[in-house]
């Protein structure tokens, strides 16, 4: 099994805070599949910089408010 990337995220928490945006709706908003959103949420896939910005914009936040680097 590949080692998960050391990037953390608050996707699930932010989806719940923003009226329970579904994984499908978020996926559509940023132009990826729902499975990719699930993989990002679970920390199994690190999104591209472009997708990271798109995700942050959906929540009206900065990239660093959504993603972090595991120390």
């Amino acid at each position, binding site marked *: *099994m*590949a080692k998960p990337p050391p990037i953390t995220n608050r996707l699930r928490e932010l989806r719940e805070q923003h009226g329970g945006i579904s994984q499908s709706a978020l996926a559509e908003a940023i*132009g*990826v*599949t729902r*499975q*990719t959103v*699930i*993989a990002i949420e679970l920390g*199994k*896939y690190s*999104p*591209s910089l472009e*997708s990271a910005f798109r995700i942050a914009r959906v929540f009206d936040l900065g990239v660093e408010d959504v993603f972090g680097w595991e120390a």
Partner: protein
Amino acid sequence: MSPAALRNVPFREKTAWVMAAILAAGSAIYLNMVISASRALGQTAPPVVGFVIAYFVVIVIASVLFMSALAAASPKEANTPADEREKIIGDKAGNWSGYVMVVPALGALWHYAVNTDGNMLFHLVFLSLMLGQISDYVFQIVLYRQAS
């Protein structure tokens, strides 16, 4: 796998399962034909061009039928282009399958250099191509399973 779990399987992983199964079945039939013919002849059977063409035609028809059925079941997913993660998975699988294809192909060349059996060279190279393609889909499945 439950219907709910099946819904969570990415469309491209489903297509990889279908293509791997079709190619594996086709390859098994081809190998069986070559082994049976070789046993009957007492030497490596020569390539039968008609069978090779039939192999490709059957594979293409089966692929089109199964892919159409999958696409009809999930038209939205089928029409969506591969996203960034799926492109990475496709690239990695294609890269790794290249190595799988090269190893038996080199073995085939080595076998020909030693035994000068052109018929065996044909079958082994054909087998390399089949293995390469099957492994491409198998690697895709593994990568989708890891990152889902």
